[in-house]
């Protein structure tokens, strides 16, 4: 696909983010674009701000009062066909709407204490879908989309807590996918999993990008290089380099990026 056909779905512009009580911002003047149906990886050493940036993208920081955002995070709206700044959202229902459009998968699997079926149906029910037949169809579709239907279909009524870690993580992906989000944010989704489960999740993520735009924070550079189309290298709250993954890994412009990629620090 040629470059000019790329469509920006999200654009981070001059973003600063400060945690409650922190003397200075954790994110400093971040600029980044996320393109439709591409996977964008955020890499960098621990504490560089990659998770902080990811968590700004769906405003999950807002749960803990006292933070400060400056700058813009613009999200493409399919309705108005324009970029709209999500940092301007104030009302709770607007934030809820935002989170339904931008899903998030966490480091550890987070199945809710309910059945497998109810886990996936939960977000749908919140949106007001009550019809059993409709729910059944959507749950099945989501579970298939997250490649867990085969393992789950005979135990839909069982507690999700009984599944293995890798299965739980795919269930959580199904739960997000069910809402048909425009973007899915993954915050080190495989760091708590064994290599086989990790492989399954990676395969799933590659599959998902046909429908959904993806941003992923990872510690694992092989994962970033295998999986992503674009890579952002962050260091101490700055975006050091952003570009196509191939270029970042093979021919980085910055010395710092090269040092990190080649394992000289991390």
């Amino acid at each position, binding site marked *: 696909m040629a470059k000019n056909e790329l469509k920006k779905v999200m654009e981070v512009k001059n973003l600063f983010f400060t945690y409650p009580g922190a003397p200075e911002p954790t994110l400093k003047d971040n600029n980044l674009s996320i393109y439709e149906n591409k996977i964008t990886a955020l890499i960098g050493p621990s504490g560089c701000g990659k998770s902080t940036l990811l968590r700004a993208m769906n405003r*999950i920081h807002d749960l803990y009062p006292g933070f400060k955002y400056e700058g813009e995070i613009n999200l493409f709206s399919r309705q108005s066909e324009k970029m709209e700044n999500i940092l301007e959202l104030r009302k709770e229902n607007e934030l*809820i*709407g935002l989170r339904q459009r931008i899903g998030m998968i966490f480091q550890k699997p987070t199945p*809710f204490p309910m059945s497998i079926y109810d886990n996936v149906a939960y977000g749908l029910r919140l949106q007001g879908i009550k019809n059993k037949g409709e729910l059944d169809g959507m749950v099945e579709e989501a579970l298939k989309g997250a490649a867990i239907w085969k393992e789950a279909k005979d135990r839909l009524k069982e507690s999700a807590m009984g599944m293995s870690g890798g299965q739980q993580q795919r269930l959580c992906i199904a739960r997000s996918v069910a809402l048909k989000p425009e973007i899915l944010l993954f915050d080190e989704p495989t760091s708590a999993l064994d290599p086989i489960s990790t492989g399954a999740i990676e395969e799933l993520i590659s599959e998902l990008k046909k429908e959904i735009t993806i941003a992923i924070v990872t510690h694992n550079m092989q994962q970033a290089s295998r999986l992503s189309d674009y890579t952002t290298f962050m260091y101490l709250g700055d975006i050091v380099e952003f570009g196509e993954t191939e270029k970042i890994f093979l021919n980085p412009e910055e010395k710092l990026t090269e040092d990190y990629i080649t394992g000289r620090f991390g």
Partner: protein
Amino acid sequence: MRGRLFRDFSLFSATLAFFLLVGIFAVLFTYAQESLHTFGFDFLYTEIWEPGEDDEGGIFGGYIPILGTLMSTLIAMILATPIAMGIAIFLTEIAHAKIVKPFSIAIELLAAIPSIIYGMWGLFYFAPIVQSLFGGNGVGLLTAGIVLAIMVIPFMAAITRDSMNTTPDVLKESAYAIGATKFEVIKDVVMPYSKGGIIGSIILSLGRALGETMAVAFLIGSVMTLPGKITDPTTSIPVLLANNFAEAQDLEMSSMYYLALILFLVSFIVIALAKFYFLGRKKY
């Protein structure tokens, strides 16, 4: 050699602790023998409490104080549970981080105030309010139940808060991340996750309310009559013991021990259920 001695002393102390509860049961059971033999299980639903002529014999039944204990506890639990849940939710999910700490300390201090203070405060400040709102003469089941609730609320709120706090943040975040409101996160994630702890805290508070003496002694009216309505005075097992135990004789005394045994047994079951089944051996 000294090590041996130290170990033996420790073992002795632990043995003492072991036999304490067993010993209380044994003593209560022994002293209740006369009443147990005379009245058997009829004691539980006999309404009469009448010493015989010249303190000989007499008929003693525990129905009124047992009912009074259960009713005042029930009223207290109905009132305390929603408010304690509200406080716990406020502390874990709503309050700003800066408020949580001083507020928690305030709640814990409220739980530390001796129960006699609640009783006396209730008698002079709360009974008149209940009287003007609901009639009656101010003291009775309702007043006792309400003040008991006020006493139990901070205790229940503190344990419930601790249970709710065990819900991992990331679990809550993932519910927010699919568009849940705060209430939905509480209802569908926090509550189910900490269900055991919450039920445990309610039951443990129930155990506390059942055995509470001083707060109730000022407020229940301390009369051996069945309450016709909720504002009527009556008595409870701890209150009857507090006021009349030391003066009782023979069979009446034995019946008091019987009541103490019932109270101890029920408390034991309730507390053990709360602590070991629901709270999973956590300390409170």
